[in-house]
């Protein structure tokens, strides 16, 4: 049974603009956001995940996106070093919560930007790490040393897909689904060389953040709006659970951004 960390959207809103999706003029509807988040929470519980909640904090509207809290492997946790000042205040709260749960908290050097599971996803025996818009490539080297794992650093080139988890989703069978145009040509090649069965997601479906999915063995919770992807996943034996995520898309987030694995891997 997987354990997940979520944060209720009590203080969620579009209060600043740090990615192309955010517009303060097009705010999130708070009651709808609450309902969509509760829908995700209920679905994950229905799929037998154990849900932990971290207390939301005022003036930290993006704390709801717990994937960016950091990266946990075994009982070790590397908190994020957020690139944007607007989110930097989240880090100590997440770190304290993880420490209280018994995790060894290992901070990266201050100068290295790293945004946790948002830019670091295990696939097969490698940790795929995105860089440029949020995380630095040099943070990957540090993370690789901390967890003693192989990291595949891939450059993101489309600002709409500013985190790895917005355009790449590893599957437990060693495959993945992804939006290739979100990566530069070397990143595409690196992924193709390390991932066996890749499912390409069309831009029209990727724009619904359909890659921003929570994978629980053969159950996949993803945003609505990707019928072709759902069909391909079902053909491979996965059961898909599309959910409305409109209010979180306004901040550039969806199912996976709202979820962090505790831990993402027991061992590497």
């Amino acid at each position, binding site marked *: 049974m997987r354990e997940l960390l979520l944060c209720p959207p009590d203080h969620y809103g579009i209060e600043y603009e740090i990615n192309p999706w955010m517009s303060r003029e097009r705010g999130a509807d708070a009651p709808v956001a609450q309902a969509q988040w509760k829908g995700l929470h209920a679905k994950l519980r229905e799929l037998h995940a154990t849900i932990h909640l971290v207390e939301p904090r005022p003036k930290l509207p993006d704390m709801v996106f717990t994937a960016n809290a950091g990266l946990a492997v075994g009982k070790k946790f590397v908190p994020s070093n957020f690139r944007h000042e607007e989110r930097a205040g989240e880090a100590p709260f997440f770190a304290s919560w993880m420490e209280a749960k018994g995790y060894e908290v290992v901070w990266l050097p201050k100068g290295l930007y790293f945004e946790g599971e948002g830019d670091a996803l295990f696939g097969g*025996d490698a940790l795929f790490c995105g860089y440029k818009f949020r995380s630095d490539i040099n943070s990957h080297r540090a993370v*690789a040393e901390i967890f003693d794992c192989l990291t595949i650093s891939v450059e993101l080139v489309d600002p709409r897909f500013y985190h790895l988890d917005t355009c790449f989703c590893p599957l437990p069978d060693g495959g993945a689904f992804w939006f290739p145009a979100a990566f530069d040509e070397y990143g595409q090649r*690196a992924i193709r060389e390390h991932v066996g069965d890749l499912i390409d997601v069309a831009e029209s479906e990727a724009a619904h953040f359909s890659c921003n999915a929570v994978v629980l063995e053969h159950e996949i919770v993803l945003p609505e709006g990707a019928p072709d992807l759902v069909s391909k996943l079902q053909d491979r034996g996965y059961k898909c659970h599309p959910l409305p995520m409109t209010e979180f898309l306004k901040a550039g987030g969806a199912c996976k951004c709202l979820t962090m694995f505790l831990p993402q891997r027991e061992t590497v």
Partner: protein
Amino acid sequence: MVSEIIELRGHIIDSLTLPKVLDQILIRGATFNIVEFKIGQKRVDQSSARIEITAPTRPVLDELVHRLQEQGAEISRAAASPK
């Protein structure tokens, strides 16, 4: 001609960072000489390379090095010599 030595470290082979950096050097009209190359023995071992870059002018070299720093390159302490 001006030169600078940069260092690359990490999983630069699996990530294709090394070929990306070498391609960027050539695309911008500079040349390279790999001064030192250490390949990790095990899958999780990191590799490292020291690369001397030679460009026609200082502005071209500085702009190139700046771009390579975005790919994780660091300027080597044992560096820069005018040619």
